[in-house]
């Protein structure tokens, strides 16, 4: 699959009409943390798969509750199942959390722009994730590790609220065990017994090993966290034009019709969610947007 990211192409999972959800069945469900879970969804209409790029999202429709945008968190490319890691924070995501194997949801997608993994070839790649922001970055990390020879250093810096909020904890240990990736985890607060790092994720940036003048950074998390992370990266010498972030707004139609997710001249569902920092930073500073 091509992994250029400026234009990921039209949505292809739900057929020609991007507004019509296709029925997908829960094939597997895993509890990740006390409030996050992962669903593996497969098409009810047959074994045909679909293709997505790291950073793209689907609209998941919990019947009777509503529809929410959720990034894909599984390995990218041509896949038979859509993997979504979701934090239960509202009525729709709470409904999704209650789904069991065999239950059916509606799915539209994939939508949106992607992490520029092709553009990053030949460079060090630093991924900085905060909280559930690790889920949209995981497909990019899968891609980097699957094509490890194409990249310089691969660094994952992950910040969570507490140790019990650490997403993909077992997988993080596996990544840590690799000799070709640097992985650091930090929590905002910890109870006695935690022997890992405590602090905010931005504090990991100065100590991480990468060549700032040959680095591409992907950042995903709450907007304030991304702003301060980009600042920390810039302080190290990573230029904003080589830093990418994933934005989140009130996405409804996912194809740029409804305008709910409009941010100035851009529609996050269609033009985003992944943006080059220098192109979107001026908009984020405008309160009225």
């Amino acid at each position, binding site marked *: 699959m091509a992994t250029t990211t400026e234009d990921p192409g039209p949505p292809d999972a739900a057929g020609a009409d991007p507004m019509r959800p296709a029925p997908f069945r829960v094939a597997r469900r895993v509890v990740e943390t006390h409030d996050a879970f992962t669903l593996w969804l497969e098409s009810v209409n047959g074994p045909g798969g679909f293709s997505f790029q790291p950073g793209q999202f689907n609209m998941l429709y919990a019947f009777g509750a509503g529809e929410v945008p959720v990034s894909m968190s599984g390995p990218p490319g041509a896949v038979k199942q859509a993997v979504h890691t979701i934090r239960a*924070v*509202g009525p729709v995501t709470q409904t999704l959390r209650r789904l069991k194997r065999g239950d059916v949801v509606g799915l539209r997608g994939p939508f949106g722009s992607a992490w520029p993994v092709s553009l990053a070839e030949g460079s060090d790649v630093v991924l900085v994730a*905060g*909280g*559930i922001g690790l889920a949209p970055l995981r497909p990019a990390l899968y891609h980097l590790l699957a094509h490890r020879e194409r990249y310089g250093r691969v660094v994952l810096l992950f*910040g*969570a*609220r507490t140790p019990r*909020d650490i997403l993909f904890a077992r997988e993080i240990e596996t990544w840590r065990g690799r000799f070709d990736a640097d992985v650091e985890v*930090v929590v*905002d*607060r*910890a*109870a*006695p017994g*935690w*022997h*890992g*790092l*405590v*602090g*905010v994720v*931005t*504090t990991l940036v*100065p*100590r991480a090993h990468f060549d700032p003048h040959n680095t591409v950074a992907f950042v995903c*998390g*709450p907007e*304030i*966290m991304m702003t*301060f992370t980009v600042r920390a990266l810039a302080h190290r010498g990573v230029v904003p034009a080589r830093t990418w972030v994933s934005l989140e707004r009130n996405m409804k139609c996912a194809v740029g019709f409804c305008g709910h997710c409009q941010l100035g001249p851009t529609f996050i569902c269609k033009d985003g969610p992944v943006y080059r920092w220098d192109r979107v930073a001026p908009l984020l500073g405008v309160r009225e947007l």
Partner: protein
Amino acid sequence: MQTLEPILAQLPLFQGMKPEHLKLIAGCASNARFDAGQFIGKQGEPADKFWIVRQGRVALEIHAPGRGALTIMTVAENEVLGWSWLLPPHQWHFDAYALTATRAIALDGKCLRGKFASDHELGYELMSRFSQLIVQRLEATNLQLLDLYGDHD
């Protein structure tokens, strides 16, 4: 005898410093080592030193009645532990203990303060660098207080 000057020159805190200043600082520096679990400083005790961690990890804690010891932050490789030596009353605000076996460079605060008195440029230089450090820590604390990953609906 080999001095710590070349090592100090490589540390982020001292990078770009004038050689004559580094020489003065090295005169107040020594190697230190802590076992895992060993306390380096305790709240209220005199803070006459600071450390730069070379290897290992140190936790800064505060004891809350009924909640036990709460870790506020951790200090890791090449990071600075302690700035209370710089400002009166020169006392530890938190407990600091080694989470793992830790090697560090210890810098004698009393010795440095004495040198600042006769070399104001050195004092200004280190004060500027510690001010940056304190601002970074304050910014990090603000982000921690915002509880960015919590529920805000």
